């Protein structure tokens, strides 16, 4: 089942001005529910732009974005025909039906950013509250949850994001860059989104920080069964964390599919200015020299296991 589907989506910045910029050019894409999908592509290929279309922050210049089969930018007038037949609207008079449909569309629209949680690229700048705890609570508070529930979610989100309990009472401005990043992540996780979209969550962090933040995201995904999209430049991260991979280049989707399938297209990836994971490359070279290793190895751990198995034989 596709959680998210993009149909011929285009997005143009500064339309009609001399510095017009096509950021997405007729992109079609589907994202499987309950999977981790990695989005890679060189800088300026339109990844961030695409992420902002998913939770309704931006509306595509043309084309449609579906979440669970519902066009998130649909207008009430366009849905009127289709929905009139539904049991919840069929019994209403024409005026009341129009009103009810309009209300429902507005409700879905308002709820969208809670269902699709977006952590923007370099989210450190968005913190504003006096304490970390209050900042994480901003999202849940906007959802109009009870204080009790908010407290619960803040603690849960802090755990997922790898924030220590004692950090919660500190000012977010006194934290390190990596810690701020995790606070921002917790702020979105606290809304318990069914789709979690992360724009380069690990960019600019040290290896330990990377693993910590990405492991936390994976833990959230496994615990809640949500759908996760991760934009990243790192093939190693893609290989370790993602089930599916989407390759972008020059405002288009070049390839999409399962990890194994994508990484077998070495040449295309190189043409797109990307790389396969180094360990995969190494294993491929070894195989070419006659070492009988399995082909689909994407992480160092898998390689270690395979080599150990080889020696055990």
């Amino acid at each position, binding site marked *: 089942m596709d959680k998210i589907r993009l149909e011929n989506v285009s997005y143009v910045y*500064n339309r009609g001005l*001399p510095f017009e910029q096509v950021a997405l050019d007729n992109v079609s894409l589907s994202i499987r529910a309950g999977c981790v999908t990695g989005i890679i592509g060189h800088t300026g290929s339109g990844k961030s732009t695409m992420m*902002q279309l998913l939770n309704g922050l931006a509306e595509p210049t043309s084309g449609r974005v579906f979440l669970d089969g519902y066009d998130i930018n649909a207008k009430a007038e366009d849905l009127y025909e289709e929905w009139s037949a539904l049991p919840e609207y069929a019994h209403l008079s024409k005026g009341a039906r129009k009103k009810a449909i309009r209300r429902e569309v507005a409700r879905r629209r308002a709820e969208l950013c809670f269902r699709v949680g977006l952590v*923007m690229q370099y989210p450190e*700048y*968005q913190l504003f509250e006096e304490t970390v705890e209050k900042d994480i609570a901003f999202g849940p508070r906007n959802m109009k949850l009870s204080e009790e529930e908010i407290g619960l979610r803040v603690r849960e989100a802090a755990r997922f994001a790898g924030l220590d309990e004692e950090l919660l009472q500190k000012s977010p401005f006194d934290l390190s860059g990596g810690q701020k990043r995790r606070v*921002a992540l917790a702020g979105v996780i606290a809304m318990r989104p069914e789709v979690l979209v992360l724009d380069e969550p690990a960019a600019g962090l040290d290896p330990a920080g990377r693993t910590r933040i990405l492991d936390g995201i994976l833990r959230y995904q496994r615990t809640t069964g949500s759908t996760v999209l991760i934009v990243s430049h790192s093939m190693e991260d893609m290989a370790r964390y993602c089930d599916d991979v989407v390759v972008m280049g020059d405002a288009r989707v070049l390839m999409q599919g399962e990890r194994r399938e994508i990484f077998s297209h070495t040449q295309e990836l190189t043409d797109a200015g990307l790389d396969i994971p180094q360990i995969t490359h190494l294993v491929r070279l070894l195989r070419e020299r006659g070492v009988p290793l399995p082909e689909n190895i994407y992480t160092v751990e898998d390689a270690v296991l395979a080599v150990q198995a080889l020696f055990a034989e």
Partner: protein
Amino acid sequence: MKNVAFGQYYPADSPLHRMDPRAKVILAILYIVCTFLCKNAISFACLVLSALVLVVLSHLPLRLILRSMRPILFIIVFTSVINIFMTKGEHLLTPADWRIKIYAEGLWNALFMVLRISALILGTGIFLTYTTTPIALTDALERLLSPLKKIKIPVHDFAMMMTIALRFIPTLTEETEKIMNAQRARGASFSTGSLINRAKALIPILIPLFVSAFNRAFDLASAMECRCYHGDEGRTRLKVLHYRASDLVAVLLMLSFGVGVFFLNRLGIGPHLS
């Protein structure tokens, strides 16, 4: 906000774009004086002609120029109405027994005022906004006003502040947008609710914005000090402005246009501005 380039500079390669910004400031001032010199139909006709020449020389799309007129539409309509109904003259157009009296002089006055205001906006727009980057403009003003340094007015420092402010407006706009988006992604809404709620909704935007603006300011100050910036004294420039022959010709043309208008006003033909 997203689609407005700051300062409305329109990048193109036209004679006006290439002109020295100091010359353009001088030309703009002269042009404003000319619009006020115009007194009769012939000189106003010349003014319209000169405006057309400017439009052609600037290579700006007509659409952009018309759009720049939109904000003053109200003023234009207002002055026309005032002039049409308030001017007293000799040639009554409405029947004598009407309570509202419109004179031919009123119509002419209205037309002249509209032309004057439009030319004013068009001239300053073309010389100073659309063909000159704000940075070049500040630079030009600094150089033109530099004699004031003699009487201890810190022209350079004002110009530097202005340049920095202008330089950071697009950056801050972009940043505001990013922060708004980030907070919107967490369910903040800025356009609904009571006035108090809307004001409160600005807090999550303003605090991060101020924090980052201050950080930027400190960084910039350090960066400037690292490069030994110490004010105006002994500072040389990367982009040195040079007047060219064409700049001189343009200024002379504008001067002769002014003199021409001055003499055309003396011709007693056609309706006058009264």
